[in-house]
């Protein structure tokens, strides 16, 4: 039996950057339950509840008024669940998957890039599903009852790609807001969030003040109508990119507290 050779150290070749990033994507998706089945089930449940409510309203409305009974539902916020879920997933990736990934000797850079890629992939998947459902909703005239869940005014009534774009950008936006908030909390705890929130509030109040003093509200209104939902949502890409960048820099010097 050979004695242990003290000098022989078998060091491994480092996989390429792309490979390392892809490992993080796989890690984020390894538990399909939380990333796919649970949101799908909950969305299905929300749809069911909405459907029952519509049916009750429809049944209780006199036949003559039925065509307009569901008009109010176009303001339905039921579809917003999926966006809130994106926010939560973003936060959890930092609070739970990040400490775990550190245990797997993943660098923060690889983790952030891998998770960002995961977000984009999940957004793409969910938004395709969402858009398809919105078309089904349209073709069945609101599931036969005139209800709106996936076709609320917020999503516009454009073609396939427009709707897809709106939902995709919105989802990605919430993912990154969630993840970046998670990094702020991890590094600077509650104070971090409070200060970030306060700064954000200042910026918004400052903007509102500026608009009011220059009496630009009508101009703002015009701009909204001209841009349409698609245009407005496209602007979300800017804060998304800022959040993505900021999150990385906050994460770079963070350590999960034990």
């Amino acid at each position, binding site marked *: 039996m050979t004695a242990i050779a003290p000098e022989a150290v078998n060091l*491994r*070749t480092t996989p390429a950057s792309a490979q390392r990033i892809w490992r993080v994507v796989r890690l984020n998706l*390894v*538990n399909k339950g939380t990333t796919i089945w649970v949101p799908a089930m909950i969305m299905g449940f929300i749809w069911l509840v909405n459907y029952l409510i519509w049916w009750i309203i429809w049944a209780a409305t006199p036949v003559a008024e039925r065509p307009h009974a569901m008009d109010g539902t176009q303001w339905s916020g039921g579809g917003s669940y999926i966006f809130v879920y994106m926010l939560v997933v973003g936060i*959890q990736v930092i609070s*739970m998957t990040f*400490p*775990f990934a550190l245990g797997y*000797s993943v*660098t923060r850079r690889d983790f952030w890039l891998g998770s960002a890629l995961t977000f984009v992939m999940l957004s793409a998947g969910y938004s395709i599903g969402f858009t398809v459902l919105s078309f089904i909703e349209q073709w069945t005239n609101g599931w036969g009852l005139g209800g709106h869940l996936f076709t609320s005014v917020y999503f516009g009534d454009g073609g396939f790609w427009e709707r897809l774009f709106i939902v995709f950008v919105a989802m990605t936006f919430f993912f990154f807001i969630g993840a970046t908030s998670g990094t702020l909390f991890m590094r600077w705890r509650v104070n971090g969030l409070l200060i970030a929130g306060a700064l954000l509030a200042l910026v918004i109040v400052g903007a509102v003040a500026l608009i009011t003093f220059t009496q630009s509200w009508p101009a703002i209104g015009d701009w909204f109508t001209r841009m349409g939902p698609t245009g407005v949502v496209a602007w979300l890409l800017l804060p998304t990119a800022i959040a993505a960048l900021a999150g990385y820099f906050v994460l770079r010097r963070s350590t999960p507290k034990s």
Partner: protein
Amino acid sequence: MSTTLTPTSIAPTVQVEGLTKRFGSFTAIDDVTFSVKPNKIYGLLGRNGAGKTTIMQLLTGQDFATDGDIRVFGEGPVENARVLQNICFIKESQRYPDDFQAKHVFRSAPWFFENWDAEFAERLIRDFRLPLNRRIKKLSRGQLSAVGVIVGLASRAPLTFFDEPYLGLDAVARQIFYDRLLEDYAEHPRTVILSTHLIDEVSNLLEHVIVIDQGRILMDEDAEAMRGAATTVVGQRRAVDAFVDGHEVLHREGIGGLASVTVAALSPSQRAEAAAAGLELSPVSLQQLIVRKTNVAATEFEQSA
């Protein structure tokens, strides 16, 4: 830029110089210098709160040094994939994603540890009786520790850290861990750094010992050298005192006319001298030695403060 680290043959795996870590006004690690040679089992010993976990966090790039220099495989470990690729850090407080089951851990670990041995992992899962389909949240303390231990062993990473991950394991499971570790280390040599305050249990496994106390290195020695490093002299008080005069005294206790004094190692002639004087010599275990030296350091610290 090469993607493989190529160490020179006797270069240390870890080289730390003047390492300091402060948390606000609290200095957790104070000007620490040591090195770790490849393919040995090191013990990082010390009391709770001495700084063992902090040092490991710094060596693995999970936390950031306030001052000093760290080289692992010749490079700084922070955000360095080339270095981190070869490290596996198993800690007691490892957090797992919500809703993760044990099987998700063992499914994903191989992606990150190239040397992963699935058969070995399966054997360990059986040895520790780990239920794979149960959620991590629902595992008992011992089973949770077992998950970490299995990952640490099956990863076969060239540099593996175990930060008291076996605290949740019962005595039987701990023995399984020590046995599997020794077995696998003999077949697949790698550098292992074990931190614990259960010194007696692991003392025979260790080749080299580093003792930390209050953020400073107290001892950094070969384990075998430490085993012969002290002796306890027992006998009539006057005879004992006469004998130990001039020796470094580590500990003194007694009752009635009987005294028991621990001193640094005695040469064979000194041992014969003690026997001739009717004194009894008894051995000092690694744990006893470390406890004595830690207390001595504490007393000196108090006196100088």
